[in-house]
């Protein structure tokens, strides 16, 4: 088990290094000189050259790469070309916003999807199961931003129950924070929930076909209890894998919802930085997302390693 863990950590580290090289190389290709964008349209060439020097853009790529990685590793990513401000706190702020959004959205998605998915699987041949299934299919088919726009139109503009958009840090005004969170979380949660429901349904259906579930019923457990005691634990594995992947993907995927609801999250920082050619910030955001995906996958792997008795032993 220790050997496996060490191996996974090694893989994680190598993956991180390789992806950082990829990200950096990709940025080097991006057209648009950051110094030029920072200075505006008719700045002199000397001024641009000066700024390039100041940012260290005139150094060899290897040196630029190393200092970038150094900044990341020491949690001091430096100063933005464009805003001339510390990037670190900004990234932290934006990440926090997105994590609130995505976290709450995913939890809502789970609340919706777990019972729905199980119900759909258990009743997959009955009308109620089919109706739920159709509902979830429809939920998957609706683009998230359309759901958001509709929610705004109805609940904010139409009924006036909730603010249409905006973001307030929880520390600044907790009540307003919650009010502004409702609609974006709903639109994210409903669409993600629909997707998740399909996975849960399929995972539970797979488990329902397992022999050990029949064994459990032969022991005298009622179907639901057999499913809960013996099935869900096993069905959770593929679902958790998907969930982990979705969670990480949503760090940037939420950008659409962030745009609809005017929320200053990581995704909108990425969009802004791309259009401003604030390359260091783009690089950092992309790297944060890549790191998050790799880390979450690593964690999920490790958790399986800890929990699944079959992986724990010597044989695979």
């Amino acid at each position, binding site marked *: 088990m220790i050997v496996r863990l060490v191996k996974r950590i090694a893989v994680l580290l190598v993956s991180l290094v390789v992806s950082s090289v990829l990200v950096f190389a990709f940025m080097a290709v991006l057209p648009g000189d950051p110094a030029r964008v920072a200075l505006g349209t008719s700045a002199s060439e000397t001024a641009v050259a000066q700024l390039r020097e100041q940012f260290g853009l005139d150094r060899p790529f290897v040196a630029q790469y190393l200092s970038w990685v150094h900044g990341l590793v020491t949690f001091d990513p430096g100063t933005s070309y464009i805003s001339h401000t510390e990037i670190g706190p900004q990234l932290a702020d934006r990440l926090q916003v997105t994590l609130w959004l995505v976290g709450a959205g995913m939890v809502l998605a789970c609340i919706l999807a777990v019972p729905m998915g199980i119900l759909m699987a258990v009743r997959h*041949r009955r009308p109620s199961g089919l109706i739920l299934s159709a509902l979830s299919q429809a939920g998957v088919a609706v683009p998230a931003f359309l759901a958001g726009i509709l929610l705004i139109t109805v609940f904010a503009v139409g009924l006036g129950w909730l603010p249409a958009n905006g973001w307030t840090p929880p520390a600044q005004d907790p009540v307003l924070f919650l009010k502004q969170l409702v609609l974006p979380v709903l639109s994210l949660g409903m669409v993600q929930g629909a997707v998740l429901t399909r996975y849960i349904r399929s995972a539970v259906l797979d488990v329902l076909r*397992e*022999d*050990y579930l*029949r*064994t*459990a*019923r*032969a*022991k*005298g*457990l*009622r*179907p639901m209890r057999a499913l809960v*005691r*013996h099935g869900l*634990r*096993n069905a959770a594995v593929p679902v958790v894998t998907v969930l982990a992947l979705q969670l990480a993907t949503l760090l940037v995927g939420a950008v659409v919802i962030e745009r609809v609801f005017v929320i200053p999250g990581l995704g909108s920082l990425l969009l802004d930085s791309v259009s401003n050619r604030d390359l260091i910030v783009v690089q950092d955001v992309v790297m944060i997302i890549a790191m998050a995906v790799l880390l979450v996958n690593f964690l999920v792997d490790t958790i399986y390693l800890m*929990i*699944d*008795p*079959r992986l724990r*032993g010597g*044989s695979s």
Partner: protein
Amino acid sequence: MTPAPDTAPATASASGQGSPDRPDDVLTVRNLGVTVGGRKLVEDVDFTIRAGERVGLIGESGSGKSLTALSVMGLLPDGLRATGSVRLAGVGHDLVDADEARMSRVRGKEIAMVFQEPMTALNPTMKVGRQIAEVLLVHRTRPDRASARAAAVDLLAQVGLPDPAAAVDAYPHQFSGGQRQRVVLAIALANDPALLVCDEPTTALDVTVQARVLDLIVRGVQDRRSAMLFITHDLAVVATACERVMVMYGGRVVESGPVQEVFTRPRHRYTRGLIGASDLTAVDDRGRLATIPGSVPPAGRFPAGCVFRNRCAHATEACATRPDWVPTGPDSGYACFHPVAESGVRGTAVPTNQEAGRG
């Protein structure tokens, strides 16, 4: 074991429906059928099993023997429906169409089952001790976890698992197939069921361990004075484990009787073929092993009348109507228009207990 159409309630053991007829009748199956979407997969199955009696149910794949067993357990797959009546001694209701709440009180306590695939029948993420204890706790036959665990150790010892005290804390993947089947057996026997249903319990096991597991099953049943319904396609296994045998084909019981009698003096042409095919010593003129011509049709596509007539060398026009059940004793009989003559049987030895020919 019984009859056919509405004419004869003629079996010796059967008279009328409802509760078991005689005090030592454990299981009474009447007129059992299994249908899916209007197709009949099993029909008109009647039999009785008495306390402590071990009955085999043989037939090729697709003959409906497993469905019969699952109907008794009330564990038919989604979409399949059972009709008729299945009564169990000491249970006040019919098992067919009983609701889950009632059935779950019966399963694991009055009837238990051993499945074919030990590799998948156990929950891979739960320690085997807990899986055994669970059946005790569900039916409240042990008051608490501690005593259930102790009972689990005891049961594992009974099924011959080495170091049972350590085994309760192991996971299924740490055991071999034969060991896992012993665990499954321990679960099935935990509550001393009145009836144990075994569905090809040794088929998936290595030949070398088949005999030992079979022996454990028989001993376990005998120790508890439990009845057993044993499903297999392996005649040798039946000969070893059972006193009585029923032969199924095309969803019907075509012949039944004491093992010795059926295997040495089969009356139904199908039974005859089956025995012939598993006799590895008998070859024909050209040195080939005997086989039944043709193959088993898909379920529900058996011919009308005698279900075996399209593979039967002796079939005549008469076989287009359904043969009546011909009782030959209290627990025996057959359904065939052209039975093998009682005298004209080639002396077929009962197959030995080894990997015999499979249907």
